[in-house]
């Protein structure tokens, strides 16, 4: 069988195909506003969630406390640093060793509450300390929405504090503060910042808010 004409044809076509693939920019899809696809006609009807009154007052699965591994990575993701004692205390926080203990304990008990308070203080104050030394506001972890040149943390304008608080709550809980609860947190920040400035403990302004966020049930349960 004579294969030479086929080989010659390939020699011509392949460079042409390669040029076509590499040469032009691929056409980018046009952005369009998000919209829900309409349900097809044969889609089964949607059943509403059961009435909480008829389900023992609750709907959906029960909340759970995060495991030690989840806590460790949550702290790292939110603050960019690690709680130095977490591995040392892991067994009492509930981590299974699969030698003597083969089930992860996720009880939100006194030991968990106390150790988390200790860990939050260590990590949050260290993070706040580092933020104070950072001149580029966008690189700050706890106060990226606050003007970089703000000298007195108790005199920040209301809008900056609110914006930063929404940012932090979204960062820590995946859920922004709003409404009356946002007002409460903003007001608490102002009191804390005033005291922190007066006591010359600047790092405790946003540091204390970080502690409150990290020890809140929204951080420790899902």
């Amino acid at each position: 069988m004579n294969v030479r004409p086929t080989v010659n044809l390939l020699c011509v076509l392949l460079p042409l195909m390669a040029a076509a693939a590499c040469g032009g920019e691929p056409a980018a899809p046009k952005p369009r506003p998000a919209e829900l696809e309409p349900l097809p006609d044969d889609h089964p009807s949607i059943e509403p969630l059961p009435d909480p009154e008829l389900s023992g007052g609750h709907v959906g699965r029960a909340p759970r406390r995060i495991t030690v591994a989840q806590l460790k990575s949550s702290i790292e993701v939110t603050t960019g640093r690690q709680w130095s004692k977490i591995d040392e205390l892991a067994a009492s926080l509930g981590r299974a060793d699969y030698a003597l203990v083969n089930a992860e304990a996720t009880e939100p008990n006194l030991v968990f509450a106390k150790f988390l308070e200790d860990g939050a203080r260590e990590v949050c104050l260290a993070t706040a300390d580092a933020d104070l030394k950072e001149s580029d506001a966008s690189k700050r972890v706890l106060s990226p929405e606050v003007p970089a040149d703000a000298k007195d943390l108790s005199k920040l304008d209301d809008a900056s504090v609110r914006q930063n608080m929404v940012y932090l709550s979204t960062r820590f809980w995946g859920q922004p503060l709003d409404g009356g609860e946002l007002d409460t947190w903003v007001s608490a920040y102002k009191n804390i910042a005033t005291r922190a400035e007066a006591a010359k403990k600047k790092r405790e302004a946003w540091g204390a808010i970080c502690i409150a966020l990290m020890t809140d049930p929204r951080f420790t349960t899902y």
Partner: protein
Amino acid sequence: MTEPFQLQRRHFLKAAAGFAGASMLGVTPFRALAQATTFAPADRCFVFIYFGGGWDVLLGLDPRDPTVFTPERVSETRILPGYSLLSTDASFPETTVRPTQRPGGPIPAMEFGPAIGRLADHYDKLAVVRGIHMKTVAHEVGFRYFLTGKEPIGNAARGSSTATEIVGQMRPTVPVPSIAYGIESYNDRYPGYANALRVSRANDLILTLSPSPTNIDSEIEQQLVDLRGKTITCESELYDTRGLVGQYRQARSQMGTVLGNQLHKQFQLDFENNPMKDAAIDLRNDQRAAIRAQYNLPATGGVNYDSAAGRAALIAIALKQGISQCVSMNLVGGLDTHFGTQVAHATNQRSGWNALADLVDDLRKSAHPSGGTFLDHTTMLAFSEFSRTPLINGSGGRDHHISSSALLIGAGIKHNLVFGRAGDINMAPGVVDRKTGQPDPKGVNILPEDVIATVLASADLDYAITRTSPLEGLLSG
């Protein structure tokens, strides 16, 4: 049940008085509340002692006479006490141990194995339950069965730990009602106050009770307390209909009480310098010296709580200082001896019995504020997940055996009593008359839930969760 609850609320309010604005979400401004409250010991205390790994009852609670159960008869009895194998350590007798009659005490009604150590001296305050059918030879299943009095599903525990059940029913006024050290704890139906303070080592217990190593300004701390007290929204209430968040809030509230009262200091056995000859410091140092002497801990220097003796001392402090009502303790481990010598197992087991003996001795000579001794107000249960085979395996150790024993000590229990019996062939779980504990061909097996029901009934608590009745012959009342 009404009065203890009122007391608890009153006590809680007293403890909470130092922090205006503190709420269920809050945390005490710790330094401000230091030394605010003193605690009275619980009127009724409980201790659950776990021997980890599966104990050899032939060496402890259910011995056999080696002159009767000889190697020559082993094919008939399937029991080999093996006491002669302890001959390499002269501190172990090579026969069963009959306790020495205490002055003015009853004639001992029981014998023990060679590893019983000093606990035999307290025969007049205890009852031995023998021939318990554990229904399992899996570690997790066995100890979870005994912790809860309910047979696990697979290896998952069912229901609450007995300590949780007790605290849930009694609602004691002490700041840390239940401590679980090196042992699991469950709570399936009580609010967070019944949860045990569960730690895996002594240092973590002390850290839990100690102030945070990172201080923040006390006024800012107060602001945080206030902030946490305001964060209950409708949405969060809906989220918490199953109570998990409520438990966490309760734990934070308990943390405030614990830290405000500097409970960690009660567990510190290091001596304080006292250059000014302060009488209070002298007294505390004397108490520390007495605890060290009682539990054979080093007279000077640091104390290792992570030994059997240290753990026993920790139990005594928790009960006598009014810190806890229930303490569940993995007192000693290293008993899962499939390989090795009988001496290794006997040595580990004896260290547990000796530590327990020191605790019993301490409680029986310490006056309780309500009258009598602490032992008159304390019920103790010592158990293991199962026992070890009556025959020695090819590796010189013993494997898992389905029949076990347990020990009950102190309040509400008949003393100097043996209840139940394991068979003389292969130490099979015995069938006994539930009222007398005597062997009865028409009787029934003793199960862990029977023992747990008895513990609950010893304090007139509701034992319905065990779905059985107490072993009446064991109850003193």
